């Protein structure tokens, strides 16, 4: 139990630091939120009133503690441009981004891991080398470019989907799927490539173990050794990569939503940056980082539960 409490404490510490990093970064901003909201020809009295209302004249530590208090009650601040709570704006856009992330994750696991297994099975022979080479290229292709190419092939040449835009799931589930599948593929491609490599390396490490040689010399064929003995052990380290994959998916969707003009969290963020709606940017950066920290925490817990050796090592 102690191990989990320690991990929980470490997670809170990380969250706190993420909060501090975000707060400090947005403190450095040249200019003043009250001034940028009113415009340059605002009157002195107007400015003073707004600055007082926003609490800009308070000392740093007061502002920090007020901001933190707000965060714990779920208040991420108020968007300058929309004059709506940031949390409301994010929740509004969340369904699109979550759908994208889930679809991408399914693609990554269903395509990446089997290909990794196949590639490990053939080792240094041609199919193995070929898959490794393709995954190497897959990691190098920028996701927004593969997005553009996918739009060109499936939207313009083949006309299977109409590129861009989004139909809500509740309105037309098939339409929603169709509008999200290409962006999901574009987000998934680099992660598929890296999970192929991890799976391959992890399996090939396992293959060096004595138990594999024993199973093979007992006359079991390679396929069943791979699937029944090796895979179980090889997949455990891959779980730790999932945290990185989650970060990749969220980072990828920020860019890809722009390519496909999807009304998700990523597009909201880019719009917020271009219109210099800094409270919105700050709230969103925090929100996304928080999600990643929590995901990593749970992955860590799952990892410890699955592999008791880790618990023992950490205790000692």
């Amino acid at each position: 139990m102690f191990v989990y409490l320690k991990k929980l404490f470490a997670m809170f510490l990380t969250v706190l630091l993420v909060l501090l990093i975000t707060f400090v970064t947005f403190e450095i901003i040249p200019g003043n939120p009250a001034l940028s909201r009113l415009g340059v020809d605002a009157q002195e009295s107007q400015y003073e009133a707004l600055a007082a209302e926003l609490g800009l004249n308070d000392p740093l530590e007061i502002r920090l503690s007020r901001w933190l208090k707000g965060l714990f009650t779920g208040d991420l601040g108020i968007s300058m441009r929309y004059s709506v709570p940031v949390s409301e704006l994010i929740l509004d856009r969340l369904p699109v981004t979550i759908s994208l992330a889930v679809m991408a994750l399914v693609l990554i696991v269903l395509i990446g891991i089997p290909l990794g297994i196949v590639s490990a099975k053939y080792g240094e022979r041609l199919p193995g080398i070929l898959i490794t080479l393709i995954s190497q290229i897959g990691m190098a292709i920028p996701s927004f470019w593969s997005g553009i190419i996918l739009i060109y092939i499936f939207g313009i040449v083949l006309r299977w989907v109409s590129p861009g835009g989004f139909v809500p799931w509740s309105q037309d589930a098939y339409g929603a799927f169709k509008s999200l599948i290409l962006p999901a593929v574009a987000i998934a491609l680099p992660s598929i490539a890296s999970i192929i490599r991890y799976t391959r390396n992890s399996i090939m490490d396992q293959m060096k173990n004595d138990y594999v040689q024993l199973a093979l010399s007992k006359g079991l064929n390679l396929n069943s050794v791979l699937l029944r003995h090796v895979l179980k052990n090889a997949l455990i380290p891959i779980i730790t990569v999932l945290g990185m994959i989650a970060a990749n998916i969220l980072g990828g969707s920020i860019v890809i939503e722009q390519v496909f003009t999807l009304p998700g969290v990523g597009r909201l963020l880019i719009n917020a940056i271009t219109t210099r709606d800094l409270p919105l940017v700050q709230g969103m950066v925090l929100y996304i980082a928080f999600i990643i920290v929590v995901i990593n925490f749970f992955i860590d817990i799952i990892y410890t539960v699955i592999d008791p050796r880790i618990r023992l090592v950490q205790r000692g």
Partner: protein
Amino acid sequence: MNKSRINLWIGIVLISVLMLMMVVSLFYTPFSVTEINRLERFEPPSARHLLGTDNFGRDVLSRIMKGSQTAFFVGLVAVSIGSILGVLIGAISGYFGGIVDEIIMRIVDSMMAFPSILLALMFVSVFGVGLRNTIIAIGIMSIPSFARITRSGFVQHKELDYVKNAKIKGVSNLRIMFRHILPNVLSPIVVAASMGFANAVLAEAALSYLGLGIQPPNPSWGKMLSESQVFITVGPWYAIAPGVFITLLVLGFNFLGDGIRDIREKR
């Protein structure tokens, strides 16, 4: 040829070809990069325009060549910033250990909680767009990985006899860190630098694609992609060329990094 060297050689060849192109573009491009030619809009690739022309009738190859300057420059400077600061932080953290290490590594871990593009976007939104800020943002974004790798090398080496020996002889900490330990832990840092270069090229392209990186008239492959996307039905080649070159450059540095690691593991 030695099989374990194949990654290294693919990397070197790819990078050399692209670097040659970059150097040539400093003195010569087939056509002007900025001059608008309304008569030659959206010409498909031909002997005259090897990669076709864009919506202003400008030669795509010439613009790709000029864009390679930006890609190499951003990659080089950003990796230098990231590696120098990261190595410094990692070395202090790993060598001194204790509470300093604990604090630094916590901060580094928290920075890793931000997807790297998000970290870069946050800095760009605070400091503004443009070449300089793009480089700084990407440089900062790569600090955590350098710090981690350096730290783990220092943690291993500080317990070794040669370091203990130097300490007994009264060699200063600074000298032990950077003259004794650093050369021994350099190779994983070089691998990280190669991979970091690839990531910097990708990040610059992504930021510029979003309109938050390099601003015109500076040429950038990412910017070219965002301009070309609008015209993809009339000039698909315009959208293909920049992507291919980004991929080749990233591929080159990834192969180089793998190649250096292969050699190290062989030893």
